[in-house]
């Protein structure tokens, strides 16, 4: 398998990636992937595939899976690869299985044994790989198999291992806290680890634990405060600095923990005030990370016992966020404001205008966040405005998740703060009309109850007014053909219950409307059921009131239709109605009392009216009824269902290696003595007797040897997947493999040099330019930062709308430039890449931009990085390619353009220069030549690009 190019993969694989890259539609991509799947299915099952080839197949499987296709046919090969001895293959295997398998996949059982073995490896990289896999793959059932080893690794000499062991333990705790509960003291211990990385990692599980229960960790407040103080004072190694901020991620985690610990605890909170104040003062508001810390401080301040001084600082910080031009900061400001107003509602008032601006903002995310804030701010004085706004917004969005959420918030606010009945009913109508199908059915039931019960005060007049205004408004909209089902149910019920109550509308009018509803929604049985029952009520109330009643003809025909309905519920209702028709007024009043929906119906559970019947039956020889729980002999199904299989450790799988079989042939005793630690089983007392009592051969075949606990033997599996040698003499072969591994590791270190020298074979002048541009655009050119500042003043251009971009590409650069967040100070320690990583307009037409690049390079205004910088060249030759990159042009184009954007940003006027080709013409020609050489049709992706370059 010739390794083509510098990517270490075969030509075939590179071609696959390339063709996917060139695919112009999802369907084309799918076609290629399906073809690849066919190929792989065939190849992967061939016998005797060289390992290197297999590794590539596995990576191709990962690729397929990444693109959203099913690669499950190859999972087993990935599992198999984790058993391999070479770290390279093992790592690939682990990577693949962690990407392929979810924690409940059946194949995991086959990996556990390997993980166990690898956790004991003396190579810490193997241990790391195994721990990585642990975090993803070990499920509740398999935790006992590895937990002991993981705990031991907490004391490993390598900090990387300790860190991963902490994280693995954390993930176990997330999956099944009960199996780790006895070990959580380890997290406390690790908090004082020498390595800041391990300490930082320990904060994750501690945070989770504190979320669950604060109290056991109150004693750590002082430690956390102390750590935070040290971090803020830059006591950690310089490598933890991020953009000149000392260990910000650790700071944030600590602040989160302190917010929990200080909540409602004055004593703890007081310990924190000083350090939080210090951090807020020190934080660098010009950088994103500084603001992240600031935000976390505000969260913490709003959570702990309030301190007036800190609240003031927090309010100032929020003001800065809200005044900022960056949408991100505005968003955070709104979020923070929402937290702080819980303590001090007055703060919001200073920021009214800013909040309104956010509400009007075209950015949906910001708008949504602002609505959340408004929701928290709602009082009876502003409820009308806010709910109206929310409803308007609700109507405008399509996302059902947020529509539902907004709807239920509207309902909640309306119920809580409604200033008048009329407004309430109108609001509910609007919500139901536009989101009726999305709101929780409970909301509909609540509404019915609310109308029935009134607002709770003993003001009957107000209640009946509420009802009649509901009836009135419902009658107005009931003919709308598009009303959601839940709303119609409410309407039917209310009309039935209260339609005729105030005497405004006649029974026949209401009945007519109800019949119309039933007719119009003939496919919805629930609505029809509501309608029929409502009709019945209307009729009954009339009859009980002693008025002359006659059934409308359409009502008659509806009843007839429903009597023959295939819904038994509808049938029953129809028959009940018919039965009622024949009763006299007195009986009817008893069956359907007026306005009695809130009365409790008393049920005598002993059903005394049946006593006679029961007696008679018993006398006739019927068997007496035995209550369910007294019956014997029948299987109690509910018990079985409820039983949690994990509660019975006796049934769980066994993961410890078996005892080394007592050798049948005495000569085999020797390997048992020299056995490597890998396979020495964890002694398990409960198993010991079984082994000695059962026949020896049983232990070998793994049949469980008649033990009471039925268990799966995992090391037997290895015979199937592992090296062939395993099955013959497991003991001796592992030792050779071990020794082989160590020799490999040791010996091949020196081969490194040779492997490096082999790599670059071709000159890469053109390619490296490509890459340079990519690099510059991905991480920015040297010129980017200062220029961006300059462009900030040209904000006037920022109003250029997206649609005009293609026409007015001269104005475009300013749009892009102003989009950039306030430039962070040059904190990146990446040399030329400083500060360039920020977001740019996605609406920019890349090809127009490319024209601009040419102009600029001619004008000499922009320091284009197309000039071959020596450092980049050398970097590039390291990562050699054989020109394949050219075929990736479609991917590269935007990258180039991005960079171009930045160069062009400060000087939009230069772009007006005509399209004469400057020094970059040669590059363009070179590039094109190479691309054509690779057989890419320039017109395939974008005709503009190539034609322009050629002039």
């Amino acid at each position: 398998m010739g390794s083509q190019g510098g990517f270490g993969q075969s030509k075939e694989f590179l071609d696959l990636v390339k063709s996917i890259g060139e695919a112009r539609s999802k369907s084309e991509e799918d076609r290629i992937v399906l073809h690849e799947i066919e190929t792989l299915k065939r190849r992967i099952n061939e016998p005797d595939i060289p390992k290197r080839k297999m590794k590539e197949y596995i990576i191709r499987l990962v690729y397929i899976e990444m693109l959203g296709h099913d690669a499950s046919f190859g999972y087993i090969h990935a599992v198999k690869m984790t058993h391999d001895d070479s770290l390279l293959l093992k790592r690939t295997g682990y990577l693949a299985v962690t990407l392929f398998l979810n924690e409940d996949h059946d194949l995991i059982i086959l990996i556990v044994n390997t993980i166990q073995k690898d956790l004991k490896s003396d190579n810490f990289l193997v241990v790391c790989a195994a721990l990585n896999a642990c975090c993803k793959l070990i499920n509740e059932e398999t935790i006992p198999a590895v937990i002991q080893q993981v705990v031991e690794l907490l004391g490993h000499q390598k900090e990387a291992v300790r860190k991963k062991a902490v994280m693995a333990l954390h993930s176990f705790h997330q999956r099944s806290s009960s199996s780790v509960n006895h070990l959580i003291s380890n997290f406390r211990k690790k908090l004082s680890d020498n390595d800041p990385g391990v300490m930082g990692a320990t904060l994750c599980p501690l945070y989770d634990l504190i979320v669950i229960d604060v109290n056991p960790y109150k004693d750590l407040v002082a430690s956390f405060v102390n750590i935070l103080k040290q971090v803020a004072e830059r006591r950690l190694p310089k490598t933890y600095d991020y953009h000149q901020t000392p260990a910000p991620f650790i700071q944030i985690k600590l602040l989160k923990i302190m917010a929990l610990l200080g909540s409602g605890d004055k004593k703890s909170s007081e310990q924190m005030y000083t350090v939080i104040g210090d951090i807020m003062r020190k934080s660098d508001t010009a950088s994103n990370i500084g603001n992240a810390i600031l935000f976390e401080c505000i969260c913490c301040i709003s959570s702990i016992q309030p301190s007036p001084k800190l609240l003031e600082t927090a309010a100032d910080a929020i003001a800065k966020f809200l005044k900022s031009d960056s949408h991100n900061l505005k968003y955070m400001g709104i979020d923070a404001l929402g937290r702080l107003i819980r303590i001090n509602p007055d703060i919001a008032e200073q920021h009214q205008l800013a909040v309104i601006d956010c509400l009007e903002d075209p950015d949906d995310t910001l708008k949504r966040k602002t609505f959340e804030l408004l929701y928290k701010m709602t009082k009876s004085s502003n409820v009308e405005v806010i709910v109206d706004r929310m409803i308007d917004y609700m109507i405008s969005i399509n996302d059902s998740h947020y529509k539902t959420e907004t709807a239920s918030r509207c309902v909640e606010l309306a119920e809580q703060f409604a200033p008048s009945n009329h407004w309430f009913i109108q609001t509910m109508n609007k919500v139901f009309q536009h989101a009726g199908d999305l709101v929780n059915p409970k909301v509909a039931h609540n509404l019915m109850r609310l109308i029935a019960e009134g607002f709770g005060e003993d003001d009957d007049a107000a209640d009946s007014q509420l009802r009649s205004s509901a009836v009135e408004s419902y009658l107005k909209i009931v003919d709308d053909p598009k009303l959601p089902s839940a709303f119609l149910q409410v309407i039917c019920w209310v009309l039935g219950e209260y339609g005729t109550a105030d005497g405004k509308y006649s029974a026949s009018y209401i009945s007519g409307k109800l019949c119309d509803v039933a007719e119009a929604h003939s496919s919805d049985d629930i609505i029809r059921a509501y309608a029929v029952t409502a009709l019945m009520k209307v009729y009954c109330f009339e009859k009980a009131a002693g008025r002359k009643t006659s059934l409308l003809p359409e009502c008659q025909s509806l009843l007839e239709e429903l009597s023959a309905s295939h819904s038994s519920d509808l049938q029953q209702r129809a028959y009940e109605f018919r039965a009622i028709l024949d009763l006299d007024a007195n009986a009817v009043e008893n069956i359907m009392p007026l306005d009695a929906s809130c009365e409790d119906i008393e049920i005598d559970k002993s059903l005394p009216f049946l006593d006679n019947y029961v007696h008679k039956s018993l006398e006739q020889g019927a068997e007496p009824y035995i209550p369910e729980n007294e019956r014997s002999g029948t299987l109690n199904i509910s018990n079985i269902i409820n039983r949690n299989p994990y509660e019975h450790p006796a049934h769980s799988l066994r993961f410890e290696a078996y005892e080394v079989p007592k050798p049948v042939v005495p000569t085999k005793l020797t390997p048992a003595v020299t056995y490597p630690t890998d396979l020495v089983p964890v002694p398990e007392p409960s198993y010991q007797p079984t082994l000695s009592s059962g026949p020896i051969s049983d232990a070998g075949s793994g049949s469980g040897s008649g033990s009471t606990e039925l268990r799966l033997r995992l090391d037997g599996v290895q015979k199937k997947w592992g090296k062939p040698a395993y099955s013959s003499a497991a003991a001796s072969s592992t030792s050779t493999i071990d020794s082989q591994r160590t020799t490999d590791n040791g010996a091949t270190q020196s081969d490194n040099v040779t492997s490096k020298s082999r790599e670059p074979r071709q000159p890469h002048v053109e390619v490296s330019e490509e890459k340079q541009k990519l690099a510059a655009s991905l991480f920015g050119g040297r010129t980017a930062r200062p220029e961006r500042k300059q462009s900030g003043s040209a904000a006037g251009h920022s109003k250029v709308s997206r649609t005009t971009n293609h026409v007015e590409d001269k104005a475009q650069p300013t749009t892009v430039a102003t989009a950039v967040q306030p430039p962070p100070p040059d904190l990146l320690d990446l040399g030329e890449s400083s500060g360039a990583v920020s977001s740019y307009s996605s609406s920019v037409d890349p090809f127009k931009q490319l024209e601009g690049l040419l102009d600029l390079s001619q004008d000499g205004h922009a320091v284009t990085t197309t000039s071959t910088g020596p450092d980049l060249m050398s970097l590039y030759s390291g990562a050699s390619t054989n020109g394949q990159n050219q075929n990736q042009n479609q991917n590269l184009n935007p990258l180039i353009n991005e960079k171009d954007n930045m160069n062009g940003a400060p000087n939009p006027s230069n772009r007006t220069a005509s399209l004469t080709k400057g020094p970059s013409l040669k590059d363009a020609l070179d590039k094109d030549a190479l691309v054509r050489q690779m057989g890419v049709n320039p017109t395939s992706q974008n005709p503009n690009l190539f034609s322009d370059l050629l002039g």
Partner: protein
Amino acid sequence: MIHFVLLISRQGKVRLTKWYSPYSQKERSKVIRELSGMILTRGPKLCNFVEWRGFKVVYKRYASLYFCMCINQEDNELEVLEIIHHYVEILDRYFGSVCELDLIFNFHKAYYILDEVLIAGELQESSKKTVARLVAAQDSLVEAAKEEAASISNIIAQATK
């Protein structure tokens, strides 16, 4: 907690996916489709967060590549934004001026690096240097293993087996 990491190109092509919470293959495709529809269409000046299905997705664009991470409601968006940047910086260090192309062909390496930065959806290491050192250590072993097939030591090992 980070529920998943997505790298999507501006054309909507998937460059890398890592799922820390269980999603079936079908759900994954749906998630990617939904999110790329939401994120790729967003304008440049808008904020780098979108709310989605009760979660928040923080994204950042680097050249033509979008790095997206899905987090819980209560997580700190700005922090996650910096976690993304942290990852990109490490990638940049590793590849030496990283570009999309590096990630396209070496996606498995990007995975290895991601595994050193995030574990089980949490940031495990915030020191770039530590990550770089660990990845380099693994690579040197891998490089060594590459030559294994041809190396004499291997032949000896084979013979003595």
